[in-house]
């Protein structure tokens, strides 16, 4: 796209095509001969990283759509079946779910890069605005995608976000009904969100083409913000930029794989492993981490309409940036004041993100208001003012001069700071439940924790026995089939043992030829039968509180880790909040209610249960279940065994995930090393 290419293919067949459709010339001029400034740093590789992520999301998304059912009654289960039964389904789902977070992480770096180096300034205004449009489309896509698993957070997130439109005067309610296709969020909403979630990525891809086109017309900006003038200022896209981008992408993939294989739920919310329930709002609704700063802005304004306007303005203001900041010097490298304000702005955004995950009360509301003012002040006061009063340092005459004068300052320290900030930003979710007045569950040493974690087969078998003899009286296990007991990575039973286990159960089947339902012995393909026919029956039999299904309980429960623990957790791969909590609740029953706590009739005191009043009576006591392998028959042992078993039911392919993760990491580290040395070799003469 840099003028007509002089590229001529030598192959006669290609020549024949080229004369009719000059596509090879276009590719050659855009991605091979295209001149890129020679002083680009690694922040510029995020463009390639984003293209890679978009491709990744589209590919994994199209595949997931082949297995997903967009129906309010089936969606949650179909997602679980993808993870459990589809070959590598767990991998594809993790890639797609973590991929969304990575996509946003990369786009934030890309946007801040643009802000810092003034990439929105003349002649790149249209390029920048196209970027803002892509970002808006990404937000819509990400939001609709989060609704599809149809968990509690999906449902309530959808309710809260669609209700934003009800703030519009006069037409608000009608618009919301139009969006829902009903009188509340329901099946029609899920259906249309699925349709749009499939469509929007292709729109994004279309705008990305325009974005790249605009980029290739104006040429890339660069860290020094001076336009390339002579040939000395540039290098050819291939091999220089290509290899550098490849190295950048492979580093990013390592970061991405850390989430896919070792902490797939780190960025998610435990509540989304509870199926959507229109009758119960989770105590604390938080959007995904990448919307948190805007959510904080929304909540910090006490008026509903004004809050919604402020939230949307916070994004729209970016589109006006080229005219708000009229400073002639592009790069903040040469703007001593603007540079400082830029970093303050970054901190403001991260703090806003932190506040977005906190309950809206007390000091958090006030801090949110102050930071909201700071956010807008940066765009509306600081930048316009600085462009008038600031004296920039002299910029180099040309890119070549800048490269020669370069003192070897490396952005690595900034990169480290940014990764830490990202982790802080992302991990704030877990913090939300910290202040609910329950004791913190004690950490237990689990055999399945860590990068090489494996389930203890003995514990799984004993846990199954505890479940069958105790828990199964009230709790279902409806996502687990008897056949799973014989699968690799599970309790290690043979197929014959699993069949024998299944045949002990009575399963309802039918109708038979007479049109009647009948009972037959279980088969390996059957799922564990639930103790109650429906939720209402379960509720009625248990004093109003339905015992939850246990298949996903260890992933659906969590507790706040609080600052700074969630940052350490990123590095230590601590992922066992759920099991710790479940084991603690099983052991947290106390006869004596501490002073100051009142427990309603029909409830029991539990030290670790939020609010302390639990409807479940103490389920386990010493010696209740007999063990054949000589393990101690104590409550502590029962709790540990059954929790291990429930961790397996929540994620039957956990061992496969960690094993494959290790292989992938070995490969990626070698590959990235090779890329690094290739890049060094290619660039040796350019520096």
């Amino acid at each position, binding site marked *: 796209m840099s003028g007509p290419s002089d590229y001529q293919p030598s192959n006669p067949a290609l020549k024949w095509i080229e004369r009719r459709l000059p596509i090879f010339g276009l590719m050659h001029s855009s991605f091979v001969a295209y001149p890129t400034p020679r002083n680009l740093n690694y922040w510029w590789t995020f463009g390639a990283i984003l293209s890679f992520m978009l491709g990744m999301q589209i590919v994994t998304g199209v595949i997931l759509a082949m297995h997903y059912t967009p129906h309010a009654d089936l969606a949650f289960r179909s997602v679980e079946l993808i993870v459990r039964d589809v070959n590598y389904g767990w991998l594809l789902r993790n890639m797609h779910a973590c991929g969304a977070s990575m996509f946003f992480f990369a786009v934030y770096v890309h946007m801040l890069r643009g802000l810092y180096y003034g990439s929105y300034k003349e002649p790149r205004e249209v390029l920048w605005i196209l970027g803002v449009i892509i970002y808006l489309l990404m937000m819509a896509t990400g939001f609709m995608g989060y609704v599809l698993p149809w968990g509690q957070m999906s449902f309530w997130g959808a309710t809260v976000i669609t209700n934003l439109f009800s703030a519009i005067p006069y037409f608000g309610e009608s618009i919301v009904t139009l969006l829902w296709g009903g*009188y509340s969020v329901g099946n029609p909403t899920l259906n249309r969100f699925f349709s749009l979630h499939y469509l929007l990525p292709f729109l994004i891809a279309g705008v990305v083409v325009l974005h790249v086109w605009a980029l290739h017309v104006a040429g890339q900006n660069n860290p020094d913000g001076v336009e390339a003038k002579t040939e000395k200022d540039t290098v050819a896209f291939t091999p220089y930029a290509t290899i550098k981008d490849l190295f950048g992408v492979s580093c990013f993939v390592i970061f991405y794989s850390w989430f896919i294989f070792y902490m797939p739920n780190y960025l998610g919310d435990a509540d989304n492993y509870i199926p959507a329930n229109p009758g119960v709002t989770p105590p604390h609704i938080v959007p995904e981490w990448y919307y948190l700063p805007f959510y904080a802005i929304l909540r910090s304004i006490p008026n*509903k309409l004004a809050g919604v306007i402020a939230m949307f303005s916070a994004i729209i203001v970016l589109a006006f940036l080229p005219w708000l900041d009229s400073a002639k010097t592009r790069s903040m490298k040469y703007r001593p004041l603007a540079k400082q304000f830029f970093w303050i702005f970054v901190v403001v955004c991260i703090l806003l993100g932190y506040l977005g995950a906190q309950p809206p009360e007390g000091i958090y509301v006030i801090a949110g208001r102050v930071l909201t003012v700071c956010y807008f002040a940066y765009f509306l006061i600081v930048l316009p003012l600085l462009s008038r009063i600031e004296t920039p340092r002299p910029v180099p005459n040309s890119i070549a001069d800048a490269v020669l004068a370069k003192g070897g300052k490396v952005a690595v320290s900034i990169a480290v700071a940014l990764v830490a900030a990202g982790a802080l930003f992302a991990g704030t979710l877990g913090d939300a439940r910290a202040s609910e007045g329950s004791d913190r569950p004690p950490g237990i040493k689990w055999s399945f924790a860590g990068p090489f974690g494996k389930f203890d087969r003995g514990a799984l078998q004993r846990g199954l026995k505890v479940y069958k003899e105790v828990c199964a009286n009230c709790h279902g296990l409806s996502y687990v089939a008897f056949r799973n007991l014989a699968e690799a990575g599970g309790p290690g039973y043979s197929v014959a043992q699993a069949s024998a286990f299944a045949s002990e159960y009575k399963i309802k089947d039918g109708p038979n030829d007479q049109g009647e339902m009948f009972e037959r012995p279980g088969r390996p393909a059957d799922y564990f039968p639930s103790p109650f026919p429906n939720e209402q029956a379960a509720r009625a039999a248990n004093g109003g509180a339905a015992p939850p299904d246990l298949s996903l309980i260890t992933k659906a429960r969590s507790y706040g880790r609080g600052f700074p623990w969630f940052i350490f957790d990123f590095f230590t791969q601590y992922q066992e909040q759920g099991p710790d909590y479940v084991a603690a609740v099983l052991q947290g029953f106390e006869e004596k209610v501490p002073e100051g706590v009142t427990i309603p009739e029909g409830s029991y005191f539990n030290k670790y249960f939020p609010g302390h009043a639990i409807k479940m009576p103490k389920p386990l006591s010493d010696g209740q279940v007999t063990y054949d392998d000589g393990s101690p028959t104590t409550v502590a042992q029962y709790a540990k065994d059954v929790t291990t078993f429930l961790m397996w039911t929540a994620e039957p392919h956990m061992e496969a995930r960690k094993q494959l993760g290790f292989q992938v990491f070995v490969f990626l580290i070698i590959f990235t090393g090779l890329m690094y040395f290739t890049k060094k070799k290619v660039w040796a003469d350019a520096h």
Partner: protein
Amino acid sequence: MGGVATLWPFISQMNPDASTIAAGAPIEVDLTPVAEGQDIKVFWRGKPIYISHRTKKQIEEARAVNVASLPDPQSDEARVKAGHEQWLVVIGICTHLGCIPIAHEGNYDGFFCPCHGSQYDSSGRIRQGPAPANLPVPPYQFVSDTKIQIG
């Protein structure tokens, strides 16, 4: 003209379809099992409707307030049916962003929304927090002394 007319079906299809509208027909609720001080939650058009059997104290509290001082001024009398003051029927959807408030919680003997901290009194009126309006009263009427029809 033609263009706009063609566009209409494409927008109109997004609105609730015939079956959804049909499922939103009025429902009847029997009030006999609800004791004083208790409340029940029924679903109508996918929305939770709280039906509270208010105590004397709750009614007095709701009526003692200076109406003009409320964020969304409305008297308790206007929110219940005359002769059936003990029954409060409201749509249990927070007017802020649509969460479901919890009954019998908060500082006003009414409802408390766990999402963003809005508090409603025993008449379902907003007293504190970001919600702009009172909990809406759905269209309903008493078919007999112990039975109401919602819708």
